[in-house]
């Protein structure tokens, strides 16, 4: 038992030394960095919360205080990602398609996180990946929401044959596992970026359709909708003024969750070599391209996967808080 603790302690000090002095990057050192970053972000979130509480007063201060630290952590992380994605050109030390380094170089002053299989700078490609992968996921989620949301609202408001027909089509589309189905569709239409966007957006819109239809079903039967209809308001008015404002909370939460799923799906497809292709920087394909390094016990290729995981966790934190708030639960 004592020996175990001693071993753990020496391991930890070794990792700590390697982190400070730039020794070889082992799994322990990698996890050490990860842990340090997470700790930093958490402390940052806590400081932001305190600072906001100090700067405000009254009702606003009370409301800010109700937001859990995890939500601050999530929002801070998401803000960082957006910042990196927007200012990728300024932040990245090398251009996106630059391959001037040797392949698989170690972490050094020139290439802070080393180079990838084609000699590109790992850090720069990570930064550009934020723009490409996150941007792509956002576009797809947005598209899925437009398609699924509009159709779901129409089905709930109009009902009848249209509703039945669309719901049965969605049932069939949902009875095939989404990843498998997208593999089939990508085989047929080819693996271009446009096809990727359309295929995932349409497959994901089925889930949005289900939710949008279900929540607006509850609203459609309310008296004020009936009143608006009797008043002679048109379909567009009923949907946009009567129903939509009452279902935004669950839809926004769903947007966050959908974004995570889409993000993971794109990464999975890219990892399988069917998503974005090099030289476009993309986190999923970066893991695949550099996976050889793992066989030499170098965890560098896991950085993009870590970036994916961190963003997904952050979005989940924010969604949790929003769901909690909209459900009106007060612990």
């Amino acid at each position: 038992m004592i020996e175990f603790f001693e071993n753990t302690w020496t391991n930890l000090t070794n990792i700590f030394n390697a982190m400070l002095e730039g020794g070889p990057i082992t799994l322990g050192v990698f996890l050490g960095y990860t842990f340090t970053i997470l700790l930093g972000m958490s402390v940052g979130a806590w400081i932001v919360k305190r600072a906001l509480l100090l700067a405000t007063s009254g009702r606003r201060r009370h409301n800010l205080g109700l937001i859990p630290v995890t939500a601050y952590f999530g929002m801070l992380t998401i803000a960082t990602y957006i910042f990196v994605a927007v200012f990728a050109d300024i932040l990245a030390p090398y251009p996106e398609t630059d391959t001037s380094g040797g392949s698989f170089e170690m972490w050094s002053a020139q290439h802070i996180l080393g180079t990838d299989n084609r000699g590109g700078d790992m850090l720069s490609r990570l930064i550009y990946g934020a723009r490409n992968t996150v941007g792509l996921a956002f576009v797809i989620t947005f598209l899925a929401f437009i398609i699924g949301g509009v159709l779901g609202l129409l089905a709930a408001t109009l009902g009848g044959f249209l509703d039945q027909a669309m719901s049965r089509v969605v049932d069939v589309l949902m009875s095939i596992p989404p990843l498998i189905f997208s593999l089939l569709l990508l085989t047929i239409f080819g693996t271009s970026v446009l096809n990727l966007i359309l295929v995932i957006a349409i497959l994901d819109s089925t889930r949005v359709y289900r939710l949008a239809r279900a929540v607006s079903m509850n609203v459609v039967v309310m008296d004020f909708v009936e009143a608006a209809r009797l008043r002679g308001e048109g379909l567009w008015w009923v949907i946009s003024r009567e129903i939509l404002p009452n279902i935004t909370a669950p839809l926004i939460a769903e947007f966050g969750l959908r974004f995570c799923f889409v993000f993971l799906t794109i990464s999975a497809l890219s990892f399988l070599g069917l998503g974005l292709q090099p030289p476009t920087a993309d986190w999923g394909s970066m893991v695949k391209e550099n996976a050889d390094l793992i066989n030499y016990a170098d965890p560098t290729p896991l950085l993009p996967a870590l970036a994916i995981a961190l963003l997904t966790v952050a979005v989940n934190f924010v969604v949790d808080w929003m769901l909690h708030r909209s459900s009106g639960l007060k612990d």
Partner: protein
Amino acid sequence: MPPVLRMILQRLGLGLLTLFVVSILISVAIELLPGDLAQQILGQTATPENLAAFRKEVGLDQDPVTRYFTWLGGAIQGDFGVSMASRRPIADLIANRLYNTLFLALYAAAIAVPLAVTLGLLAALYRNSLYDRAVNVFTLGSISTPEFFVAYILILWLVHGAGLFGVLSTIPTDATFGQQIEATTLPAITLTLVVTAHMMRMTRAAIINLLASPYIEMARLKGIPRYKVILRHALPNALAPIINVIAINLAYLITGVVIVEQVFTYPGLGGLMVDSVSKQDATVVQACCLIFASVYILLNLIADVLSIVTNPRLLHPK
């Protein structure tokens, strides 16, 4: 006819109908392939005679409806036609790989299901405890990470750190059961980690939902011991949600298998499917898709039937 039986038959009928519609969908999808298939596969240099012979061999000369029923008839008997890329029978390509994939999935399920249900039950019973919070963090982290991340962390830790397994899951063709277990363990652990989190979270939610209902409180107030409340009152009603949770996650395994097989270069159906997608080998993709979709639909069907069968309100009709 007792209501239980009627509901089960209804559900089975609906399941078969879904399966049929999905098979049509998959085959229509293949019809949509742009351009002349025979030309694409044989290349520009193929002579008209070669093209005609190939069309006859793959059945491209028949009309779509006949082709669909020939294909479906064959598929039910395990004959999926010929691969477009290698021109070998798909059944030969698939047989061994299907066995490997099923082996991996069952292995993972055998670890994951008891583990997840037990841990989820405990988390529900001791909710808001330190254990519950730790479980929550772990599951959230695990759900948010891509499967390949978990897989590579395990490789780095167990293969390179501890030296426990080999990196690649190559399986000799005449492998014994022991060898198969050894080669499959690391992929199975990865899948277990990925699926357990989902399953635990959902089991916990299902039980907590149930424990909040008035009749449980009633039982407690009557002074019935805690374990009896759980076993006699909660469990019969919790069975349906738990079965559903298990089925959904076993279905989720199907997606996970594709990626995990790729990481470990495990010779399974998922790997074959991904390879065929990049080779645009439509018939093989079609066959794999049909198999995966059927397993998915069947799992959901079994879950629905089981939750009907275990529903106490249906078993004791008034």
